[in-house]
């Protein structure tokens, strides 16, 4: 029982840490988004408070805390107040399932006359072995928050926004799920950790028609094995996180502000945390599936290598920790670049009309995802290593 209690506490602490990182990244992203939007439209964006306007985040957070609580007259209190709480959960849970760095291994040691270890600290909240299936399952619960908010605030714009949003989310979930089948065939596993391990190696290499092909100037990443699937997956995640050009649920011109019309203050911020959480999950998934996860391209770093390379050697525990930190930074850089793409696309593409959006999901992306699946299956069956 003592060991159980230790593991449970450890897992909870890790999940709370990941959640806090997610919550802390949201104001940074909001700032980046406003700043980048400003530059793209030839204006400044927030630049007054603190260096580069960075203190704006703090000011906003404090302002949100002291906002007036509002409840619409005809609203349903339970649904109205539960919706923002519900918005937090799927994003935080899904992010906790993704390995953000390599495991830190602590060798057995003696302390206060007792034996401890060996310990393996995974850099993820939980690992049930079916990685992506759990993440898809948990993030599919995101639709409830929107529906609860839309129905609970008793406003026709809110409800219409919520219903549109959930119809959009479920439509693109098909393309999202199907686009992954191809890459799953190549990896042969659901586990994120194994996928990352399979993307190790110096250069892209595969067997084509009985010959071994090595392309030394490309990293051994999933995106080069399944580019079409990667493209469809990345596009579908835009729709899943309700971002432009797919932000129909909150299309200002038509629906006031969509499902969160009647919300203000910190409740609204919680919806934003949910939305940015979805974006982070999407970026992390793209990184793990297609961009090698937390590993560096071309250079294979292992704790043993770090231990050797450090001046005069290093204790294996510290080497393992240092490797973990390096990998976490690599992961952060990759995820941040993808989040930048999210912001970039927002100001590059116009919003879709609703029927075009549904057409794109059902008649373009779903068939192409199916084509990708068939192509990959045929490729594997006829000429794989």
């Amino acid at each position: 029982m003592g060991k159980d209690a230790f593991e449970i506490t450890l897992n909870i602490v890790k999940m709370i840490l990941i959640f806090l990182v997610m919550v802390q990244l949201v104001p940074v992203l909001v700032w980046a988004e406003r700043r980048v939007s400003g530059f793209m439209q030839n204006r400044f964006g927030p630049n007054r408070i603190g260096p580069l306007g960075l203190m704006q985040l703090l000011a906003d957070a404090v302002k949100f805390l002291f906002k007036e609580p509002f409840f619409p007259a005809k609203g349903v209190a339970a649904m109205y107040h539960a919706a923002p709480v519900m918005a937090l959960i799927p994003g935080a849970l899904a992010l906790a399932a993704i390995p953000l760095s390599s495991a830190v291994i602590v060798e057995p040691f003696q302390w206060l006359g007792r034996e401890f270890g060996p310990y393996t600290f995974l850099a993820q909240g939980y690992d049930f072995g079916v990685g992506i299936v759990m993440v898809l399952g948990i993030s599919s619960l995101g639709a409830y928050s929107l529906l609860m908010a839309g129905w609970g605030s008793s406003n026709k714009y809110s409800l219409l926004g919520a219903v549109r949003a959930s119809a959009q989310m479920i439509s693109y979930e098909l393309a999202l799920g199907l686009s992954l089948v191809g890459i799953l065939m190549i990896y042969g596993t659901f586990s994120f950790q194994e996928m990352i391990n399979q993307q190790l190696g110096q250069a892209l290499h595969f067997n084509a028609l009985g010959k071994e092909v090595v392309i030394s100037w490309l990293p051994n990443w999933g995106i080069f094995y399944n580019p079409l699937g990667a493209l469809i997956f990345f596009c579908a995640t835009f729709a899943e996180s309700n971002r432009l050009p797919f932000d129909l649920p909150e299309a200002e011109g038509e629906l006031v502000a969509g499902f969160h019309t009647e919300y203000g203050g910190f409740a609204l911020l919680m919806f934003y945390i949910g939305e940015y959480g979805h974006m982070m999950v999407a970026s992390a998934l793209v990184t793990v599936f297609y961009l090698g996860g937390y590993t560096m391209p071309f250079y294979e770093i292992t704790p043993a290598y770090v231990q050797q390379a450090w001046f005069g050697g290093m204790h294996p525990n510290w080497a393992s920790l240092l490797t973990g930190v390096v990998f976490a930074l690599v992961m952060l850089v990759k995820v941040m670049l993808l989040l930048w793409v999210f912001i970039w696309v927002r100001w590059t593409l116009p919003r879709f009309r609703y029927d075009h959006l549904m057409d794109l999901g059902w008649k373009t992306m779903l068939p192409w995802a199916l084509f990708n699946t068939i192509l990959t299956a045929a490729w594997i069956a006829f000429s794989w290593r």
Partner: protein
Amino acid sequence: MLTSTDFLFYVLAFISVFFGAAVVIARNPIYSAMSLVITMISVAFLFGALDAWFLAGVQLIVYAGAVTVLFVMVLMLFDLKHEMKTFSKGLLGNGVKLIASGVTLGMLLVYIWSTYATEPTFKPLPPAATSSIKATKDLATSLFTDYIFAFEAIGALLLIIAVGAVTLSRITGGTHHADS
């Protein structure tokens, strides 16, 4: 001694039974549907407690993430005042609820009784898989070798359902014809 697995089972079983009862008892159909969501999620984690993580994920994706979303969406979309009046108040509504719950409970009791009354004959279980990914691969292997016909039949069944749903949605008239 209550191990963590036992504790988990009791908590999840309590949640699923409690909210399962709430599905029947709640007056407002929306609250019924939301209770159903929680029941589905706790059933998914019950699968997880049995180390069937793939099934848990499928339960979340298909039942909690798709089927119940459909229920909630439909209940929110349509004007349910008449249905609420008919089914949540008055003798008829309560009678229907009582009869339905009684029949279900009776069937469950008969099933449990018949299982325990006769000597159970279990098939020998296959050796437990070492990891959930191995378990999923075993599941896939038996699905695509022993049960391949059933699998293809599911494909045909889903096609028929799709055609049926589209055809039904095209029918005009009925109760909604008069006020459109």
